[in-house]
């Protein structure tokens, strides 16, 4: 953690003064009169960004566990599809995946009229299910690769010991293998989650109103360019900082030692 003493070096004080000066200049020289009008919309956008992030990280991780397991120990007919899935997700831009899911699938709807009368239609009409699906698959693809390594990294001896005690396979997985693998991946999770946060603004291109979409709306309504973008950047830096702190805390709780993750 940052202590006060390290901040009190002369050059850092100067830098902080420069930063404060910049902030004051921003507050006075730039236009902020639009803020009150767009504040409710911005709150809604922040809420959308945050729930998208949390939901897709959780779902994506749940999907990554079987993907990693299939690749690590699965028979070839499970390992190959899992590997192909991870390669495709990691090898193509998320923006393209998102558009393929949203507009590609959308262009197929009219050919199958029964879809519109199905019970799923009210959801298929919305944009957020596609955003959740695309972000979830993306996280699963990247984290699935990490989980593969994590499962392989669990020491053989532990598993052999469990087997020699006659532990059933599923219990062994639940009690020994999975917890060990989770410990192995924990240090990478924070970074992956920040990367996922950085992917969320793409959903604005398929009409989901997240905080990025709100800033675009301000820009197009008022033609103010920099102010909304500066606020947007500050918001993402804050969230990234909170994610890093959160995972740092989790690491200390679970592993007992905290490695500073930058």
């Amino acid at each position, binding site marked *: 953690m940052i202590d006060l003493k390290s901040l009190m070096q002369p050059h850092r004080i100067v830098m902080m003064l420069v930063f404060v000066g910049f902030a004051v200049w921003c507050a006075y020289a730039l236009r902020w009169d639009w803020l009150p009008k767009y504040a409710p919309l911005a709150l809604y956008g922040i809420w959308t960004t945050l729930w998208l992030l949390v939901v897709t990280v959780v779902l994506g991780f749940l999907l990554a566990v079987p993907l990693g397991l299939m690749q690590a120990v699965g028979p070839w007919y499970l390992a190959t599809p899992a590997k192909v899935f991870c390669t495709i997700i990691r090898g193509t831009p998320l923006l393209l995946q998102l558009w393929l899911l949203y507009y590609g699938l*959308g262009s197929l*709807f009219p050919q199958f009229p029964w879809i519109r009368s199905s019970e799923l239609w009210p959801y298929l009409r919305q944009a957020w299910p596609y955003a959740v699906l695309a972000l979830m698959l993306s996280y699963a693809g990247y984290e699935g690769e990490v989980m593969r390594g994590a499962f392989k990294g669990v020491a053989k001896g532990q598993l052999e010991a469990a087997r020699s005690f006659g532990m059933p396979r599923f219990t062994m997985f639940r009690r020994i293998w999975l917890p060990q693998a989770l410990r192995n991946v924990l240090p990478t999770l924070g970074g992956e989650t920040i990367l996922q946060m950085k992917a969320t603004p793409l959903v604005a291109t398929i009409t989901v109103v997240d905080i990025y979409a709100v800033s*675009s709306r301000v820009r197009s309504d008022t033609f103010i360019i920099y102010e909304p973008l500066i606020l947007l950047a500050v918001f993402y830096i804050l969230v990234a900082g909170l994610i890093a702190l959160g995972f740092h805390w989790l690491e200390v709780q679970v592993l007992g030692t905290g490695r500073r993750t930058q």
Partner: protein
Amino acid sequence: MNVKKLLASSLAAAVLSAGIASAEEVKIGIAAEPYPPFASLDSSGNWVGWEVDVINAVCAAAELDCVITPVAWDGIIPSLTGQQIDAIMASMSITEERLKTIDFSDPYYNTPAVIVADKSMDIEATPESLAGKVVGIQASTIHQAYAQEYFKDSELRVYQTQDEANQDLFAGRIDATQADSIAMADFVNSDAGACCEIKGAVKDDPAILGRGVGAGVRKGQDDLREALNKGIAAILADGTHEKITSNYFSASIY
């Protein structure tokens, strides 16, 4: 440090020499996303359409050396003020709100805004009829401004391009869209738009919908604005405007 410096300076030189062109030509910004029948990319990579022909005719009449430069519609005004382009000729209506930031030439076309919806839907172009419906609009357009003002009881979905809104209308994800009447006439006459029909024009509000489409220029660029005005007046007077229009539409759109 020589190696690094050499590497850096040669790279910088490569980037700059590739990047900086002479600044005599007039860069006319159009939307990088297709907007048929006004401007769209054909399969051989050329921009074609009514507005592209008009740009060429206006520039020829005004004796300007124009280069058509596609930029994202969403950021087209920042691109103009940030000097990446010199003028916008991208079906941009002259509105009070935009006049606060940029200047406009005289209008070169004017069309009403219409509501398009599925044929089976009983929808009229009124806020009451659209209440509770999902209305798709393109970002940064007069239609977005209008819908935000008048369709307060509708769910608005904002697209980056009108094409994507049309696509979602076709897919059934939105109930209606508001856009320019000519672009929509083109859409409903195509295969993809066969689902839908024009339900009527919305009630005019000149403060929001503006007074026709003009060429946008930076404030204070009066020379260019005058030159464009002269070009527009010339093609209107000598029948070029009419001739181009007849290649695309059955009626005048001025």
